[in-house]
């Protein structure tokens, strides 16, 4: 399983990578903002899921989500928002834009596991 992490915080990318490895993800790719993530997805190789922060420079997580859903070649990739945005209104916005999951920071490894299992992925 290959997952793309999109977060401008190096520390958060590290924490997410640890949690994903714990789940059994074999390959993790990283991008520091939505624009770079979009370029990475378009250039390939394909990933099985994306975990994306909301507040980032260049292109934020919501903009990234909308761009992916508007791209016929990428639209099916599962996307989980991982963010400090905890208000129900924000979650609804993300869901309406096509987010498959929503994790509020700070997270535990169990939260990450449950989210991925909810998307149909099997951990170890």
């Amino acid at each position, binding site marked *: 399983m290959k997952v793309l992490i999109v977060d401008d915080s190096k*520390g958060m990318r590290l*924490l997410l990578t640890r949690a994903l490895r714990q789940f059994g993800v074999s390959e993790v790719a990283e991008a520091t903002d939505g624009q770079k993530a979009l370029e990475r997805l378009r250039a390939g190789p394909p990933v099985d899921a994306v975990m994306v922060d909301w507040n980032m420079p260049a292109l934020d997580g919501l903009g990234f989500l909308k761009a992916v859903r508007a791209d016929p070649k990428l639209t099916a990739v599962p996307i989980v928002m991982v963010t400090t945005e905890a208000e129900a209104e924000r979650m609804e916005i993300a869901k309406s834009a096509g987010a498959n999951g929503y994790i509020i920071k*700070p997270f535990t490894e169990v939260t990450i596991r449950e989210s991925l299992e909810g998307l149909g992925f099997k951990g170890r």
Partner: protein
Amino acid sequence: MNELDIKMDGLALAPQDAAALLGTLFDLQVEVRSDSRKSALDRGVLAVYGSSGSARLAFHFDPILAAGAGAALTRIPAPAADEASRLGRLPDSVLENLCEVTNVLGRWPRTRWGQLRLQTTVMLPAALPGPVGQALKKPKLLATLLVTIAGYRPGLLTVLAIEPAAGEERDGR
């Protein structure tokens, strides 16, 4: 209601909520309790939070807590954090980590303005304009808290109210 809860107009902060947030973030035991000491606000790191474009609240991390919290996120060893706090300058990796810590702490205050969002995180000393600069010159202290992250030296977190600039509506609605 916990007797340590911090309250002001439209705002409530419970220390145990901060401990829970930080404990989950670091995956370490974190204790937060009130402290009678006063931090020197000209050093350390200031995180400013607001809503609707207005700054409303700031958290001041003394150099020990700033270094320890930044280090704890990615398990940078405590001696490295101690050295950073002694020198008064945080390495980029620690400061970047601390920015994520301050980002997460934006979830701590319960307010009638909705969720406060991090506006900036600044290493002090720094020239800060407007209400934030005023808040440091004439601080309206809401509380000083001792934050203990397992494995790192305890440090002080000071909660400051930011008075609105002239013409700004206080409640933001």
